[in-house]
């Protein structure tokens, strides 16, 4: 029931925009409402997982929602609602015409649906299918304005991610091959629960190979270095709401896929091979992200590289046992909120300043007081300062690294985070202060969109200051989903 409530709204929304002609504003508003419905379903699921300790499993075992799925679903639904609310077609003066708005709403809802299915299905093969579909559905929306850069970005995105995700499929097939050659052909063999149950009997060597394919494949989608190259292009060229979804939750979904597989591989191998691979990829990503931030001229690319860095941190966290996994999931949630907030604000800045260059934006606090302040908060959150949530998750991450004896990892991560910190703040300073450029209108009213973004900031503060039990509870369940007790 909850599952239908979760998945049906985006499907209905996508179809209705496709079928209904005209009355764009009404349709758009109803898609927002549908997204809100989907969000409430995800909240319900989280509550279910939390209070009743229930894992929703469909009768054929095809769908399965445990704590981790519910957590991801909640993030996806939240960010989708935000993106939908900030998307074109709601009638206010915006830069997109109706056709573009329709395209946006059709595909963004399909995109959301694919992500939601990816985290709620039990079948790793089908999970692959939907993740591959996310590439297609989102690539279509990137060149909403068909400019050279946006076409280029989406082509690279499509090509690189398709190749990457194909490798993930090869990995899936290899794992299935392993399963089939040890356990024979059983129905639902690609179900994660079945795989995990059979994991101790699987052939370690083959699973190693499969996991290598899976990490590279899904890692491409997650933006792990060195497969991250599409990410800065696509995230910076996409319309802001889509960037928010891609950076905020798409990467998270890919990490989810890796984590699910890791749970199987860890048992099959009985060694920390998977962790080492993730650690290496994570550290490399943090390094690439951090250093790419130092000399960066575009603020949207800056946010994108920051995503590479944060996904790297999540990857490192997943490699560090239960403590690290806790930090990683918390970090993923925090990052989803902070990064989507940052991208949506970047969209507002772009709309006003008409440039993506950091050098072209100055006096932001003066020109757009609300946007400026919220943007500052988002960046401060992203660099891991209290009172925002990412501070706590990075705190826990470092603690996990040191308590598990990964001293050098901790040292490297901290130094790289310092590099990213200084770079981001330097860029932020340049944008916030100074005199406004000529020809940029000054002043900003505080509308409901600002209120929504302020809400994001409030969530970040709550996660950073209070971190209430429901949140820790659901994350603990997420940890137990991927880490063997």
């Amino acid at each position, binding site marked *: 029931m909850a599952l239908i409530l979760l998945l049906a709204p985006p499907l209905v929304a996508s179809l209705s925009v496709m079928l209904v002609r005209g009355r764009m504003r009404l349709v758009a508003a109803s898609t927002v409402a549908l997204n809100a419905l989907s969000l409430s379903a995800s909240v319900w699921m989280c509550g279910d997982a939390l209070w009743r300790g229930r894992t929703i499993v469909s009768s054929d075992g095809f769908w399965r929602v445990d704590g981790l799925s519910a957590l991801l679903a909640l993030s996806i639904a939240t960010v989708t609602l935000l993106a939908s609310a900030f998307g074109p077609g709601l009638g206010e003066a915006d830069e997109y015409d109706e056709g573009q708005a329709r395209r946006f709403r059709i595909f963004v809802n399909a995109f959301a649906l694919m992500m939601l299915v990816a985290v709620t299905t039990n*079948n790793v*093969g*089908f999970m*692959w*299918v*939907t993740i*591959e*579909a996310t*590439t*297609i559905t989102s*690539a*279509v929306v990137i*060149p909403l304005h*068909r*400019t*050279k*850069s946006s*076409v*280029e*970005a*989406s*082509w*690279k995105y*499509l*090509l690189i991610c*398709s*190749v990457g995700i*194909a490798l993930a*499929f*090869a990995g*899936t*097939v*290899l794992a*299935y*091959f*392993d399963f*089939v*050659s040890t356990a024979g*052909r059983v129905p*639902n*063999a*690609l179900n994660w629960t079945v795989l995990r149950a059979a994991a101790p009997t699987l*052939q370690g*060597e*083959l699973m190693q*190979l499969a996991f290598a394919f899976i990490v590279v494949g899904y890692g491409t989608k997650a933006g792990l270095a060195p497969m991250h190259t599409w990410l*800065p*292009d696509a995230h*910076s*060229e996409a319309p802001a709401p889509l960037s928010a979804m891609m950076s905020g939750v798409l990467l998270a979904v890919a990490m989810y896929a890796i984590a699910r597989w890791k749970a199987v591989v860890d048992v099959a191998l009985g060694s920390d091979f998977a962790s080492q691979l993730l650690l290496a990829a994570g550290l490399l990503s943090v390094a690439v992200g951090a250093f*790419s931030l130092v*000399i*960066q*001229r575009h603020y949207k*690319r800056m946010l994108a590289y920051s995503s590479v860095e944060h996904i790297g941190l999540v990857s490192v966290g997943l490699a560090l046992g239960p403590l690290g996994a806790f930090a990683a999931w918390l970090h993923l949630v925090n990052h989803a909120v902070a990064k989507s907030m940052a991208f949506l604000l970047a969209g507002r800045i772009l709309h006003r300043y008409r440039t993506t260059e950091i050098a072209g934006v100055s006096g932001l606090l003066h020109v757009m007081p609300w946007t400026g302040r919220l943007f500052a908060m988002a960046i401060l959150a992203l660099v891991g300062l209290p009172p925002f949530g990412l501070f706590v998750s990075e705190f826990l991450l470092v603690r996990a690294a040191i308590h598990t004896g990964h001293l050098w990892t901790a040292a490297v991560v901290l130094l790289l985070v310092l590099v990213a910190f200084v770079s981001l703040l330097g860029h932020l300073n340049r944008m916030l202060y100074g005199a406004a450029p000529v020809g940029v209108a000054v002043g900003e009213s505080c509308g409901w969109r600002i209120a929504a973004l302020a809400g994001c900031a409030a969530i970040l503060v709550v996660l950073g200051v209070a971190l209430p039990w429901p949140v820790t509870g659901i994350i603990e369940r997420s940890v137990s989903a991927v880490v063997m007790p």
Partner: protein
Amino acid sequence: MEGIFARLVVLAASGMLLTGLIVLWRKGVPAYIAAFTWQSWLLSGMTAAVGYLGGEPQLYLVAVILLLLKGIALPALLRATDRRFSTRRELLAYVNTETSLIVGGMLVLFAYVLTEPWMAMTKLPTRAALPVAMALLFVSLFIIVSRKKAITQVIGFLMLENSIALLAVVGTYGVPLLVELGVFLDALMGFLVMQIFLYDIHETFETLEVDQLARLKH
């Protein structure tokens, strides 16, 4: 019976690898499309064979879809696209033909080295085709990386899919049907979107030379 089965499968798989290698030394999009078409036909035929000899009737359906989609529909679409855009027949690559072939050979070798331990693991009659599938995977990756035009990258990508499908068929007698259908749907959608983008690229950049697409840096 078993022996014929194995030979047949290895033969078909080797044929597929051969089509991949052909691409490495042929120049011109039509030749690429032809190679891909041959490859898809071989894959389809082999899927049917495995379905028959391995007793997996669902593979017939897969074979039919493969034939229709990758053996007929996609090549036709590719040819149409090529006719529309190609101004220069000669294809450019980042590495010359000799090097390409040598690299291709090394990749095949690497695939054998890599898959060697599996041979002991499985008793499948089709197991001899596993290294070939892996080799084809590497070769198609090499095609994608080394050829300059967008359309050749698309073909390389399709070959990559074929290689994974081959892997699935010879290694596991096919993944579950639902997943297989999903994969087809994705392949189709992906291909169509790529086609759309080929048009977009041609329209905005007035070329399909992918190395022209380097505005976004750093």
